[in-house]
């Protein structure tokens, strides 16, 4: 595996510079049912296709950011800070925030 990601701070860097935070999940709001909690904690889509995921610039500035990547080709469609992520699905990143 070898590809390049654009850190929002540092620009384009090798993937080995980064830490992977996994696919973006939606934190349940309110008190979830046991089954829903189980899904949230343990299950991932593991999509063969474009997915939104977390990355951290481990060997660089330390920034966490979002990316959309095609898991089949490792093509990175975009990267952005959570606040700058394309709006349609940006909610996914923060809607689960504890209130």
């Amino acid at each position, binding site marked *: 595996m*070898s*590809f*390049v990601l654009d850190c929002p701070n540092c620009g384009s860097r090798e993937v080995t510079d980064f830490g992977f935070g996994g696919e973006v999940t939606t934190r349940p709001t309110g*008190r*979830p049912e046991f089954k829903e909690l189980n899904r949230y904690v*343990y299950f991932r889509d593991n999509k063969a296709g474009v997915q939104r995921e977390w990355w951290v610039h481990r060997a660089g500035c330390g920034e966490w950011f979002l990316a959309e990547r095609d898991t089949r080709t490792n093509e990175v469609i975009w990267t952005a800070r959570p606040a700058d992520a394309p709006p349609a699905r940006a909610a996914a990143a923060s809607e689960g925030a*504890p*209130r």
Partner: protein
Amino acid sequence: MSGGRLAENGGQRIRRGEELRFTFDGDSRVGLAGDTIASALYAGGQRTFSRSFKYHRRRGELCGCGQCANSLVTVDGAPGVRACGEPLRDGMQVEHQNAWPSLELDVMRATDLVGGPFTPPGFYYKTFIRPRRLWPLYEKVLRSAAGLGKLRRRQPEREWRTEYRRRHCDVLVVGGGIAGLSAALRAAQLGADVVLCDEDVEPGGSLLFEGGHERARDLAARCREAGVEILTRAPGLGYFDGLVPVWQGDVLHQVRAARHVAATGTLAQPLVFPENDLPGVMLAPGALRLAALYGVDPGRCAIAGVDDRALETALSLHRLGVQVAVVADLRPDADSELTAALETAGIELMRGVTPVRAGGSKQLAEVQVGPVDPSGRLRGSARRIACDVLAVAGPQAPASSLLLQSGARARFDDTLQSFLPQEAPPLIHPAGAVAGHADAESAMLSGAVAGAEAALALGFGEREDRDRLASERAKLEAEAPTVRRAAPPAKSHDGGRGKAFVDLDEDITAKDVAYAAAEGYDSLELSKRYTTVTMGPSQGRFSQLASARVLGEVTGRPLGEIGVTTARPPWTTVPMGALAGRPFEAAKRSSIHARHRDLGATVRWAGDWRRAYDYGDVEGETMAVHEGAGLIDVSTLGKLIVRGPDAGELLDRLYPNRMSTLKPGRIRYGVLTSESGRISDDGTVCRLDDDTFYVTTTSSGATAVERWFTWWMASWPELDVTLTDVTQGVAAMNLAGPGSRDILAKLTDADVSNEGIAYLDGPQLAIAGIDCLVLRIGFVGELGYELHCAAPQARGLWDAVADSGARPFGLEPQRILRLQKMHILVGQDTDSETTPYGANLDFAVKLDKEQDFIGRWALEHYEERPPAQKLVGFTCPGGEVPTEGAAIVEGDRVVGQVTSSRRAPKLESSIGLALVEPRLAEDGASISISDDGRRIAAAVQTRPFYDPDGELLRS
């Protein structure tokens, strides 16, 4: 007699005035600046460079460009250097490899003379397997007999380190021959950022020794002017999804290009006939390089080949002043300008013949050539030709490994009698000879096309550039094929006595491949694994085609069906150190480390840290903390400053207890859990002021916690809070023991009484004149103060505290002291399943707080159910200290495991922690520990072994 130097000539690399002195096996030798090791040795009359891998046969100059294994030597103690590619340096100490006692007298040669016919492929597997018990002896003997060179056992200091360089560019051109230079020039002229890498000391490829050196230098200069970065002596090692590591001495360039041009050229192939490995039998470009680049007179040459290259080689050598005896062309009907030129030059051309045997004792003296029938047998009689060198020009094999690694396929081409890469993926553009454009003009054109395609695909250039590309492409296609038609090499390897090698690296003969096929290893992949053909240091680049051909002949299948295998990276031999590079995770030492060394500490690894394990007296150090005062370096703790109006809110969301209610100057213990409610770390939180919290984490969890915090912060952009990781910048030491208050009093004017600094107070004070954050916590169970200060001042603070009577103690005493208090060590006493309830940390979970927090729902769930395992203490009345990890059993059922165990000198007993089924978590419950065959009786204890009510901590 051969040797010596030819007259001066523009293309030569050597500088005649500059002599370099070096040694070969201890004898002093002389070469010229610009020589390779091999060209200097050859010019000095040396013909044998090494002994072969299995039969220890003499091997000499072959490829002349650092690609073969014939010239592997040890240079200044480092084995595996290819003499024919390595520039000579003054003072070099060169030694042969793989011969004992000397290169001239190698006793292992017996394997060839005696054992030869008895060591077919598989011989070792079959012979030395019985009797089994003797294998260790066999192995010892075989291992010392085999192998290529010896590594030095010890390298006290690594003499060099590789730097990584990451280079992102638009176009990477691999190969600096005419096609590569042309591609780089065009792409750069169109505006692309271009890197070109080449293995040789200068770009130019075969132009350099085929009379085109001026053109090569002109092209390279124009490339540089256009902004191309040219890397020389820099092979591209492989293709990894668009990343090409380019190794250049002590730099590994990790080149990431949007487009690639593969202009890797072709490799001349040997011919297979008996004794074809005699020193003096070399590849045609090898002989040419010697003469053209290094001005070495190779001696009287015979040339043998299957296409026009043999004729061109003869003419080039002749022009350079080399004596050419005869050209043996396998094609019966060669007739062209070249044949006419040969006639003019007075060089005899034999048509329809091929070498059937080489002769000579230590080096080539004669070659026999003649016509052969389709079965490889000589028709009529052979003619003997006296010569010093036989330059062979078998079919050209494209150097296609980069293309094949990127996903291209190899297809057999009848005209070339070789495999051509096809269907390269869109991001990689083949150019020049590797794509079948062999002669200089079409290689130049195909390079320009590839460079233009790459740059235009990236959005460079204008409409007219696209038009130009279209017309050049049409021209290139119209001219094709510009390739040299080759005759299929003759099957001449059956000609009687002697070994006809298909693989010089591994000493594999044509007979071996045939033998393996007869045993059933009749596919290339199987044959390769059984005979090890193509698996030597040159990765089959001079043996793959020949071995596939033999396999085709013996199995009666066409060569196209046999196929070729893809050579894996790296393309060339690379020192392991060049790939290991500079470690990114450096060993960490605290700023107090020098003191630990002064005190003779036992230093051990703890994660990335080097830590003082003890100072030689675990018991004494432990008792000092109980009876007086001890001092331990805890700089490895993770330290985070969380600041901002929402700092408390952030911590409330991350910890299961309340941090926002903490008063400035006060401390609270906190446990961190995942969303599944499992313990991930623990530590203390001290509120410095309204907006600022100082968070400590475990040593091993520092990085993970920092990442955990920042991840959630990124998820909650609405929080106005920042995090600063001061783990490295702030040092910490824990002063503990009943005498610690008196010591502190000596070092500060502040009120250090129990009222002045109460338990869980966190004041900021000057201690010994150094600004400190003083955390009064129960780290090791006695009265104690954790002193945090700027790392550069820590040694001064340590000295002041130690000089006031605190005895340094290490990690091991600390573990004993903390175990007595049943303080958990996350990761040791907890596993991925342990919840705060299971670890008796109920007090740190506040489910009654309004706030939602990470892990809340899971913890609500666990609160209602008993955990699967509960952490309890135990004592062993018999005094045994069970192994950590030992099972706790009931009959033959496992009901738990020991997580920590130590002998506690103060308590004079054996204590431990264990995860057990909750029903056993009762004071006095007896448990049985199964430890390496013995059973140890133990009694459960749920409250701390030492000072269970924490009175000492608070007083």
